[in-house]
């Protein structure tokens, strides 16, 4: 499709050029009209720009200013005294060198990436399955599922962690109680958070539980766009449900899957609230910090804003790379 479009675009100037030299008088008219339309295009270009001004202004104040401050801070020696007004000397790339040569940073980054991968995979799979389920449900049940999803989605992250924390509580948690009753083995006083793997299992449950609704709703909305007749035809040709999903539904929804996956990657990579709150309930901080929590610990708890700033800038660069991919994919989508 893109190739066709490029050809079309390439054609236009050719046609114009082709028309130009032939008759000087006759081509004036169309040329002028072209120029006219060009001027209209200019006006049309101004209006969207003007409409963008308010949101751009808000973004510059709310996002741009802190980002610039962060960037400046990452090149300064900035501690607690500086936060209260002491002058902050510039130290060049010192903060970055300290971060990049610190093995803790790399451990935390790799841990975050692994955690993000698992969560995105779990969220996308579950979300898609639930969307497919909703498509097949009757009205009443679908409403019930939708309301359930909405409630999980609407729950503030901190509240969710506290409630899940109670369920997984070592001494009085319902999970330990149920497991003891159901399996017969003694789960009393089993700590779910003390082992890092088990800690991340709990974190994954909480985060997936809260992100599945967004994926499920988006994919469900997309599913309504898949033409029934194509699916029916495929069914008549003997395509099973898996083949239909793989060969028809997935290609139709490819752009939706792409956008949602990129968004999930960004959200899960910078996850903060759930991990931070869980660490307060149990577990060992050093073995369970993800990059967001690590930045917080370095900057706010440790009072080293400069070093924390450098880590944050590195994370921003990583996020920008992912976002650029997302923006490019969206632009391609717009073109086709």
């Amino acid at each position, binding site marked *: 499709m893109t190739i066709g479009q490029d050809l079309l675009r390439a054609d236009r100037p050719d046609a114009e050029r082709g028309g130009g030299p032939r008759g000087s008088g006759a081509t004036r008219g169309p040329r002028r009209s072209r120029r006219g339309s060009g001027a209209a295009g200019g006006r049309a270009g101004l209006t969207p720009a003007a409409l963008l001004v308010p*949101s751009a202004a808000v973004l510059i104040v709310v996002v741009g200013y802190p980002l610039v401050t962060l960037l400046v801070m990452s090149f300064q020696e900035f501690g607690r005294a500086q936060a209260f007004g002491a002058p902050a000397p510039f130290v060049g790339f010192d903060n970055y060198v300290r971060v990049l040569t610190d093995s803790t940073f790399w451990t935390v980054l790799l841990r975050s990436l692994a955690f993000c991968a698992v969560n995105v995979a779990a969220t996308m799979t579950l979300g898609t399955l639930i969307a497919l389920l909703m498509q097949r449900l009757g009205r009443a049940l679908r409403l019930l599922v939708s309301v359930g999803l909405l409630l999980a989605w609407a729950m503030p992250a901190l509240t969710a962690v506290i409630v899940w924390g109670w369920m997984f509580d070592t001494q009085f948690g319902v999970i330990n109680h149920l497991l003891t009753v159901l399996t017969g083995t003694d789960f009393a*006083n089993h700590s779910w958070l003390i082992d890092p793997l088990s800690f991340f299992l709990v974190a994954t449950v909480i985060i997936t539980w809260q992100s599945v609704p967004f994926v499920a709703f988006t994919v469900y909305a997309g599913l309504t766009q898949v033409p029934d007749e194509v699916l029916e035809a495929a069914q008549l040709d003997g395509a099973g449900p898996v083949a239909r999903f793989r060969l028809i539904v997935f290609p139709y929804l490819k752009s939706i899957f792409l956008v949602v996956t990129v968004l999930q990657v960004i959200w899960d990579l910078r996850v903060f609230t759930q991990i931070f709150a869980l660490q307060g309930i149990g577990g060992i901080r050093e073995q369970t910090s993800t990059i967001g929590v690590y930045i917080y610990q370095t900057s706010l708890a440790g*009072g080293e804003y400069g070093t924390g700033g450098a880590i944050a800038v590195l994370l921003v660069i990583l996020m920008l790379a992912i976002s650029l991919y997302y923006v490019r994919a969206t632009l391609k989508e717009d073109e086709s």
Partner: protein
Amino acid sequence: MKKLAFAAMGVAAALTLAGCSGGAASSGGGGGGDEAEIRVWLNGTDTPDEAREYLKTTFEDDHPGSTLTIEEQSWTGIVDKLTTSLSGSDSPDVVEVGNTQSAAFTSAGAFLDLSDHYEDLGGDDLLPGFVEAGTYDGTFYAAPYYSGARLVFYKKDLYAAAGLSVPTTLDEYVSHGVALAAANPGVSGIYFPGQDWYNALPFIWENGGEIATEEGGEWVGGFSSPESQAGLKQVQTVMTTASLAPKDGNETDPQVPYCAGTVAQLSAPSWVRWSILAPADADAPGCPDQEANLGVFALPGKDGGAAQVFAGGSNVAVAAKSANPELAVDALKIMLSDEYQTILGTAGLVPAKVSLAGTIGTDEAATAITEAATNAKLTPASPRWADVEAAGILQDFFVKVAQGGDVAALAEELDARIEEILNS
């Protein structure tokens, strides 16, 4: 639509500003510009409701038109939160800060200089150790608020059943714990959650160890010293053989397992007594029916007498960025008044003034509090100490000790981290 919305916002903002200036002008004409809202930050549930009520009504009676709002903060993460809010434009006026955390803020210039008010606030009657904690470079920034003593609470019936009497040495306390745990399956002989590093300190100190010492301007971590190691091994024994508390749990709400009947002995701040005895229908219910069964003593030392326990407590200060420093200082004076401090004393906290020590009472708990307070000890006096606490490395360390980790290797790691932070 956006344009319209923005225009509307602009108009609304303009109107609001106009409204503000109008209000200020009229109040300036009538009441002398004294009207303001003072925000007081208190941490945790340590301050009893009666004291909060007294502070609010007294302040508002003294300053008609002004209001005082108490905003309760959580102890967890308080250093981070204070750093952000005290340096911002929306700073609270009066803040409570843990005594070991004061130095992080007094040294950074976050608090108002209170030297001129020293005499009004209580002068030499104030608890000396806490005045010291609130002073930096000879300037008095943060007043004492209260001191909390740590006590051991125990179940008298379990003691009687095991034929035990109140321990007189630290070793005996530990062996009691092990014996009680063995005799009562499902019950912690000594309830000791892994993150509770405050309660581990007496074991280190009583065995002659230190957290960290300053040698020639450099801080040296003390957890690997042979003395500290002896204490830490004792902590590990308690955590692994006498305690059923979560190995990675924290020390908040110990009344819950206590009232559930799974705790024989528990070392905790003195005010936990009121959490245990809270009415059964309270927001945080306790078990008042256990009152007669609740025994209390001061943690015994290695060679008898009271052990060196952690002198937990708080300082109060006025934020340097307070919009109404004079009113804030007035609120602070109420908090250090004899009436207010007496309320704290009757609630089991050691008042900020030496002369009010008698208000704690004379019952078993009061005697234990006074005894424990005589031998209390502080964390290293470094402005960076608060960063060690905030980094959570002490919690991590004791969680690993509770899991049965190698105490010597873990201590070396911890010392390195402590030195890194204190010497940076």
